[in-house]
């Protein structure tokens, strides 16, 4: 029997990137906010300590900062006629666990989706006609435009201390920035990071082909930075332990380095860790959330009543809690009805590795997203007529910092072991770098999330089941943009080159990206979206579902900046509209 606790104004499930921002702002406006987190508290000065933060085995291979699958995982299958089986090891993606979520170990690339991305379907139909989209493609408009989100992108970038160079400042194209990006109201809060040898070569090669290279925007401060919440981040030292690791320097935009120092001092906020929410409880009419039920580390059940429930977990738990709680109609891919679990999408990453016998890169130096990028082949920045696909992705030079267990490039055809392998590994460790492509991924009828009929978590509840494969559109796109990257790579004069477009069936085994999207998508039509354009549940209006779960399909970029913008956009709607007049926000 659950112990019923005193009611609060707001309860949120998951204290990561989205949750901390909402908690800080709502607690500051005077509301009592409880944040419930399944993992532990983690902080820079208590946990992210030298020298142990620089332990590749512990963090990259044993996933110390990431989800403990012994308690909860997902099941996966490519097609609905297969039996989904549990993901027993982390591989394709790496969700976080604990305060800060994946915001502790992310790689810091901070991209705005293109204006086109928010209106994928209508702009595709307008420019190319219906034939450009596959029949089972369910990609759609977001219900919000880039221009509406612009101030919120700016807020998030100023919060997280993003280093970069604007390419479109109030409509004026600025040399050195990304000329394809949407209009920005302000320059980035910090100038670009330093230029590595690989970045410089890339920029030169890109310019020789007429492209417009620019520094990859990243939430890693190029100088000491104090954000609008008054929290100070240090300048990055380019140690090269970013993605997969926590930052010992407080030089990575994360809840710990941007929001938590302020949030934890606010008496209106209470953090409860090691508490796993298993259900949102609805009233008898299923129109209103009355509380959440969670289990603490001693196995005790608590019921926390609240006026407003915010689902601020990773994509999977946002969708799973909706399904477990009966919030919104589950998606049925056969009838193509229902909304919860619909439009699950991912990313279509690919790469080109360049090997230079005559150059040295000190590849172990770097930072998360460090490098230069070109955006000529993203979104609808190029003519897709006759290409048979939509979307694209940016191409970037990678100076993330190579650690030798995971990153030790060898030319294709090198044996996997023995003296020849050893020789190539030793020779190229500091003489190669990658061009990485963050290909987009459209949504389809068959790709969805629901509850698994067989496998259960540690609480005896059904795991989330993922049914997903990439479609012809994604394979054609990946081949096209990866070949463009190969042409660019060739212009840099490497002695050898590996070209790896994304081919074949999606597999959950090798790492690809922690960019899972959809399942609780936003939109203007309750028949095709689980939440409205303010991320509010159509069916249970005192529930907001915040995160990449709202993306109707995935763009050719890393998602965090857009997640941050949506968080501020939803916050604005909660503060200025919902709280003034609780109920479904219309128009």
């Amino acid at each position, binding site marked *: 029997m659950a112990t019923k606790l005193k009611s609060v104004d707001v309860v949120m499930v998951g204290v990561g990137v989205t949750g901390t921002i909402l908690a800080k702002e709502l607690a500051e406006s005077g509301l009592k906010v409880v944040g419930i987190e399944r993992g532990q508290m983690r902080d820079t000065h208590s946990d992210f300590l*030298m*020298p*142990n933060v*620089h*332990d*590749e*085995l512990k963090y990259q291979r044993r996933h110390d900062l990431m989800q*403990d*699958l*012994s308690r909860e*995982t997902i099941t*996966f*299958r*490519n097609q609905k006629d*297969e*039996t989904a*089986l*549990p*993901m*027993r*090891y982390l591989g394709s993606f790496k969700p976080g666990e604990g305060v800060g979520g994946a915001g502790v170990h992310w790689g810091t690339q901070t991209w705005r989706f293109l204006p086109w991305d928010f209106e994928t379907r209508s702009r595709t139909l307008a420019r190319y006609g219906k034939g450009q989209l596959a029949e089972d493609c369910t990609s759609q408009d977001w219900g919000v435009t880039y221009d509406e989100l612009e101030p919120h992108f700016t807020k998030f970038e100023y919060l997280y201390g993003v280093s970069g160079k604007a390419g479109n400042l109030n409509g004026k194209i600025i040399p050195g920035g990304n000329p394809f990006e949407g209009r920005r109201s302000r320059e980035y809060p910090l100038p670009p990071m*330093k*230029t*590595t*040898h690989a970045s*410089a070569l890339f920029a030169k090669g890109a310019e020789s082909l007429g492209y417009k290279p620019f520094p990859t925007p990243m939430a890693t401060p190029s100088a000491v930075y104090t954000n609008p919440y008054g929290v100070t981040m*240090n300048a*990055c*030292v*380019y*140690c090269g*332990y970013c993605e997969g690791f926590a930052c*010992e*320097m407080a030089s990575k935009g994360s809840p710990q380095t941007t929001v938590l120092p302020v949030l934890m001092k606010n008496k209106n906020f209470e953090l409860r860790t090691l508490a796993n929410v298993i259900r949102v409880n609805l009233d008898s009419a299923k129109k209103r959330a009355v509380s959440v039920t969670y289990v603490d580390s001693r196995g005790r059940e608590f019921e926390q009543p609240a006026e407003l429930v915010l689902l601020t977990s990773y994509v999977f738990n946002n969708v799973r809690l909706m399904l477990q709680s009966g919030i919104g109609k589950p998606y049925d891919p056969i009838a193509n009805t229902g909304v919860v679990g619909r439009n699950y999408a991912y990313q279509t990453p690919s790469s080109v590795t360049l090997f230079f016998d005559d150059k*040295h890169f*000190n590849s*172990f*130096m*770097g930072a998360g997203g460090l490098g230069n990028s070109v955006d000529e082949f993203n979104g609808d920045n190029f003519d897709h007529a006759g290409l048979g696909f939509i979307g694209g992705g940016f191409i970037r030079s990678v100076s993330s910092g*190579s*650690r*030798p*267990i995971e990153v030790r490039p060898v030319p294709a055809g090198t044996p*996997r*072991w*023995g*003296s020849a*392998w*050893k020789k190539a*590994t*030793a020779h190229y*460790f*500091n003489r190669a770098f990658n061009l990485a492509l963050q290909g987009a991924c459209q949504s389809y009828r068959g790709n969805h999330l629901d509850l698994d009929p*067989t*496998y*259960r978590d540690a609480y005896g509840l059904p795991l989330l089941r993922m049914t997903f494969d990439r479609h012809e559109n994604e394979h054609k796109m990946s081949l096209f943009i990866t070949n463009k990257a190969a042409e660019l790579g060739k212009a840099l004069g490497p002695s050898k080159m590996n070209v790896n477009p994304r081919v074949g*069936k999606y*597999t*959950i*085994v090798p790492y690809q990206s922690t960019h899972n999207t959809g399942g609780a998508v936003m939109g203007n039509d309750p028949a095709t979206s689980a939440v409205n354009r303010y991320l509010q549940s159509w069916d249970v209006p005192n529930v907001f579902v915040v995160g990449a779960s709202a993306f109707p399909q995935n763009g050719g970029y890393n998602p965090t900046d857009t997640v941050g913008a949506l968080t501020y956009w939803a916050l604005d709607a909660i503060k200025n509209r919902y709280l003034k007049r609780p109920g479904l926000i219309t128009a």
Partner: protein
Amino acid sequence: MSKLGKNSGRRWFLKSVSAIGAAMPAAAALGADADPHHGHGAQLAQAARVKGQPQPQAYGWLTPSEAAFIEAAVARLIPADELGPGAKEAGVSFFIDQQLAGAYGTMARNYRQGPWPEGTPQQGYQSRLTPQEVYRAVIAEIGAVCASRFKQSFDELTALQQDEVLKEIETGKFELQSVSSSFFFNLLLANTIEGFFADPIYGGNRDKIGWKLVGFPGVAAAYGEYIERHNVPYVAVPVSIADVQQHVAELDEHGHPKHILLSSKD
């Protein structure tokens, strides 16, 4: 290659055992003495640390014949050659031993509930066996096949024969019952690479052999003033976690080691 020939694995194992025997009194005394500032054991450990002598290594989980197999196999995957020592010399077998004995070996942070149908390759690992159980079962299987085919154990084969067996396991020609042979090969190769390049704290990468091979400095320094020196190799004496914890490496104000730079080698 002659030093990697017949019986080398077995001899190395015996040598390891005798090294452990010799070190025993110090280790036992250290264990019995709770106060680190008093007693003979603590002084010995302190002296060893000051002199930078490596702690003696020993197998905690692998049986002697399992250890002999792993020493021989990793010596073929990353061999000692003209570029320097290989995985065996780096202590990768000890790394694997320690990994199998701990959370990794028992899948402590992995989903372990059944049912366990084999599934598709896209669905990833689905066996009910943990890495610990996989190694135990597979090494026994390989041992039985080698005994009937060569009348010798794997570690007693010539390097050429060992390579042949490993290639058969890699390609699936050598069929295993407990797990698929390619799965085991990939596991062994992944663990070997981990042990060769992981921080020496885990028992492998002895003397930072792996890091020296590729030119990786280990625990990073602050590189801000170096990162824009294009095409200038930064060749540093690698620093391990122990070097920092035991104050062997000098640190900057943020706790990053100050690397000792060597002259350019390119």
